């Protein structure tokens, strides 16, 4: 029998499928093919589309995170910066995030990345690490030489290091702010730099008044972070920094309300560092309102309204700082100033005491405390407080020095001597200790001891410290060794030439104006300072020294108040006022020359504007300032405020013949001749200056009679 035929092998699935397809009708084949193709294409498109959508979404999120990063940079929030970078990296794995993180970690940016250089510069600057900030800023300037902020940072670092020559050079390279992209922070930095380097601040002020002030109330500003708003408030204050005689731009008055709103917005921050900056700016805004009122830009009613609102605002800001950072002494200091502004001295004292308890014996608080007690005639209390604090913290040098200085103001030289001896044990070579020691000796009338103390330090040290150079010149004249001045002046000139800085020279000349004035040494001293100004024409220290010296020469030369010399002194002081319009010392000197030397009482009243501001703001003037203010007010027939000022001066300095004489004249103006005569009799028994003697002679006859 033949073998059965094996059954045919079963065909695979795909083969069977293929057979099926092969045998299917054509239209079915086309239809199925079309469907299959459609499905495949749709799937591919779907996947691609999804990916694209995802990419776009990631891109948007990444952009958001970068924006978050930018915002954090602007706000200086490092934590937020890192969080934003992490988010960016999670979204895009962008290797630049590592570079940013590395910059944040090390504070060093790669030189080829200007953005990173900007970041590192900003970080260092915010924390006051100026050498590091300057290093990073210099890298950025290589790539962006017109970067305003970077150049300001380099200049500020130079100022911090005491290198004014470099600072000036950098400042001179800054373009006009109108020609460069500049931020509010940059303007504030630049203004401080201009002041520090003695440069005319007009370009900055002009830009602020013409451009920045208008922006303050704009909608765009509302979106800015608190740090920028605070910068804008500070810019606004720059607008007030011109000479006191110069009319204020109208824009400043119009922007007063907007600035208040900016401050309110900025106060919403939770950053105590930012809030502290805001609080400090707020304290200064009070003066701005006063000036607006004096300039006629706001009415008294408006001023009162602004001030009340601002007091509440400033108090809120500082209270918030206290809540967030209870050991921030600036908060208590700021609140005390607010109280003082409102003429609530006791509340101010309470606030300062609270600050001392919370923050320890912070020197600024102690200094304010002693000033408050001194001005309210409680200097003994102030001394006691400081002495107790010093006993509790015997190695606190700052405390001991404060105590010594207050004791000298009292004057309680015995207390000052003990405090100083203790301070000298802790830090014998500390310049502040030496300064107070010298002051103690000079005020005790022992200029020889002061001279010997200085001689122990040696010429090299004296010539390297402006303060010591100033005192040395004074001690030479007070000690009767004026014959050595030409040699001394020659040394300071050589030092200035060697170092390229006139700072010590200016201080030395200033010292000659402090002490016993010798007309014979005046021409050579003036020649020295004039030579310095020929080389450094806008040096603020030289200008101050020259003005002070001329004023002294005008008053104490022979003849006194010689017209040409007096006019020259007034001119020099006016120039000084242009540089530092709020400086009460310059204001006092100029008012004095105008009142006594030029007999221009009306003009001297304008000059004492800063003193009036200071009195209005804090009520803290020295006895000399109050006396001069009183004399000026009296000369302008403002009897009541004159009496208030002079009585306050008399309380602070009952042994001042000058104060007695002016107060006597005030009483005479009010018809109180008996009191006036008593004061004149007291003045006769006290040591008097040549001006006092002249004033004594000029008194009305009724006052010169025996009481």
């Amino acid at each position, binding site marked *: 029998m033949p073998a059965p035929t094996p059954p045919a092998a079963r065909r695979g699935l795909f083969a069977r499928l293929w057979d099926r397809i092969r045998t299917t009708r054509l239209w079915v084949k086309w239809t199925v093919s079309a469907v299959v193709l459609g499905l495949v294409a749709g799937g591919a498109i779907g996947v691609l589309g999804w990916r694209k959508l995802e990419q776009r979404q990631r891109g948007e999120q990444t952009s958001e995170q970068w924006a978050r990063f930018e915002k954090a940079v602007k706000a200086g929030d490092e934590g937020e910066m890192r969080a934003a970078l992490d988010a960016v990296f999670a979204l895009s794995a962008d290797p630049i995030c590592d570079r940013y993180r590395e910059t944040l970690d090390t504070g060093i940016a790669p030189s080829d990345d200007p953005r990173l250089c900007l970041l590192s510069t900003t970080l260092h600057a915010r924390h006051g690490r100026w050498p590091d900030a300057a290093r990073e800023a210099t890298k950025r300037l290589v790539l962006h030489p017109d970067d305003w902020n970077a150049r300001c940072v380099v200049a500020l670092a130079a100022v911090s290091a005491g290198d004014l020559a470099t600072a000036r050079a950098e400042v001179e390279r800054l373009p006009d702010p109108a020609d460069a992209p500049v931020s509010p922070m940059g303007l504030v930095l630049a203004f401080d730099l201009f002041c520090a380097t003695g440069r005319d601040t007009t370009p900055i002020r002009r830009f602020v008044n013409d451009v920045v002030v208008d922006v303050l109330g704009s909608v765009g500003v509302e979106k800015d972070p608190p740090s920028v708003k605070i910068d804008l408030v500070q810019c606004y204050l720059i607008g007030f920094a011109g000479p006191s005689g110069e009319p204020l731009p109208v824009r400043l008055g119009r922007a007063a309300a907007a600035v208040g709103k900016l401050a309110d917005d900025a106060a919403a921050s939770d950053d105590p560092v930012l809030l502290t900056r805001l609080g400090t700016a707020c304290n200064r805004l009070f003066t701005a309102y006063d000036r607006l009122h004096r300039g006629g830009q706001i009415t008294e009613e408006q001023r009162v309204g602004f001030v009340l609102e601002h007091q509440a605002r400033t108090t809120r800001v500082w209270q918030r700082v206290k809540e967030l950072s209870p050991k921030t002494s600036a908060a208590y200091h700021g609140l005390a100033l607010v109280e003082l502004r409102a003429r609530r001295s006791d509340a101010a004292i309470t606030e300062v005491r609270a600050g001392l308890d919370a923050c320890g014996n912070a020197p600024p608080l102690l200094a304010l405390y002693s000033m408050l007690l001194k001005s309210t005639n409680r200097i003994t209390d102030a001394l006691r407080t400081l002495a107790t604090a010093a006993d509790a913290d015997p190695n606190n040098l700052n405390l001991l020095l404060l105590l010594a200085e207050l004791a000298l103001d009292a004057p309680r030289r015995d207390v000052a001597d003990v405090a100083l001896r203790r301070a000298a044990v802790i830090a014998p070579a500390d310049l502040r200790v030496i300064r107070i020691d010298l002051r103690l000796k000079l005020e005790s009338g*022992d*200029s*020889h001891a002061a*001279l*010997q103390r200085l*001689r*122990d330090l*040696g010429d090299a040290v004296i010539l390297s410290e402006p303060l010591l150079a100033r005192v040395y010149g004074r001690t*030479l004249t*007070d*000690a*009767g*060794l*004026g*014959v*050595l001045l030409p*040699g001394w002046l020659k040394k300071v000139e050589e030092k200035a030439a060697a170092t390229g800085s006139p700072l010590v020279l200016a201080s030395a000349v200033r010292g000659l104006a402090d002490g016993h004035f*010798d007309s014979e040494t005046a021409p050579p001293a003036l020649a020295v300072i004039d030579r310095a100004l020929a080389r450094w024409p806008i040096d603020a220290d030289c200008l101050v020294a020259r003005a002070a010296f001329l004023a002294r020469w005008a008053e104490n030369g022979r003849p006194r108040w010689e017209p040409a010399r007096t006019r020259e002194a007034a001119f020099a002081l006016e120039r000084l006022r242009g540089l530092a319009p709020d400086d009460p010392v310059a204001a006092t000197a100029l008012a004095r020359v105008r009142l006594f030397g030029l007999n221009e009482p009306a003009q001297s009243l304008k000059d004492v504007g800063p003193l009036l501001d200071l009195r209005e703001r804090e009520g803290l003037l020295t006895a000399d300032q109050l006396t001069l203010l009183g004399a000026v007010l009296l000369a302008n027939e403002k009897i009541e405020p004159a009496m208030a000022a002079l009585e306050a001066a008399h309380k602070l300095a009952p042994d001042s013949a000058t104060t007695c004489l002016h107060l006597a004249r005030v009483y005479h103006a009010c018809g109180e001749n008996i009191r006036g005569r008593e004061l004149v009799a007291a003045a006769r028994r006290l040591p008097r200056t040549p001006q006092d003697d002249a004033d004594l002679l000029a008194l009305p006859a009724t006052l010169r009679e025996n009481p």
Partner: protein
Amino acid sequence: MTRFALPILLFAAPIFAQTKPTTPPPEVEQALEALKANKVTEALDKLASAAKTNTQLPPPKVQLAQWLFQMGNGPAARTFIEQALAEDPKHPEGYLLNANFAFGEGRMTDAFLSLRLALDLTADPRWDADQKKRFAREARSGLVEVCFTRGDFAAAKEYALELLNADPKSGATRARLATVVFRQDKPAEAEKEYTQAFADDPTLDPPELQLAGQWQLRATSEADPAKKSAATDKTEEWLKKAVSAHPKNPKPAREYGLWLLSAGKLNAAGPYIDAAHALDPNGKETAVARAVWLLNKKDATAAEPILEGVYKDSPADLNALSLLCLCLSESSDDKKKKRAVELADTLVRQNPKGAAGYAVLGWCLYKGGRKDDAERALATALNSGQINSDAAYFAARLLVDKQKYEDAHKLLVGATGVKQGMFIYRSDADALLAEVAKKLPEKKEK
């Protein structure tokens, strides 16, 4: 009041020199020349001839006695004064000169009696008004000095007031009165008198300087340490006032500078010495002060030309000479060291009784390498019992070289223990004391 390194006692000059007529007649000058030529008789004749025509002149033997005294011939002078007094016992001049001699020899009682007699004799009608005035003035001046020296300040004051009565504007007399009053422990009154004296006679030392001098004298003589310290403080206080009040006068600055040097304050002294030099660049005393300061600063090279100049102009200035010797001895030049020895030898010859000269000689010999000779010279100084701090250092240095540390230590402790006193080698002495202290068997405290 200046305290230099080696105070030399000069031979005492007449304390109250008699006033001479402004233009002596030619015979008087001829008489002096004759006396210098040892022609005593001729001198007497000339003087007698001059006296006939000029009654204002002193008796011839009195004049002769005065000249002999000034020439250092005491015995001859005494002989002639005795003869003069025997010949005319009612002439005040003789007693005045006798008082001068007695004062110079320390015989205060004799001086007092002679002066009293002279004063009483002024009443004699043979004298004209001018002579009476002069005799009375000189007698009273002498009495002030004598009473002052005896410590009878009340009497000194009385005589001084009598002098002022006759001449209220005499600044010198008033200054003397102020000194007397100060010794009566009335410094405030003394200050007033000194101030008035200066107002009457601006050539006097300023009142502040006078007071500083008085306080310094008190500090020197005061035994109680607390009072001594208080007097020293007062001295400095018045020196400072003197400098401040008289900025154009070099003397206060110079004196204060030297005082600071004496106190070992080298740095502090600098400005005052410089100021004195600036005000008085050619003055001898200022130059010497500057040289002393330079020596204290161990800058003998700079001091040398100054001292050479002073010595050249004033070879009799033994103080400058001794400083020059020290200066030259510090030189590295052997010729200068040799010259130092030669000059020191001159110093000793000019004042053989002075211990200071021997001390300087000893040091110059030591620095010149002649240690044995140095030892002998220093021994002479030590034996006198009058050595100063520098001399003590010189001797100690020699003793250290001979390893006699105990003796050296004693000398050095004594020298460095003096807080106020010119001590050019102070820093060297301090260093040597530290070195010696280490070598002693047990520590000794200063």
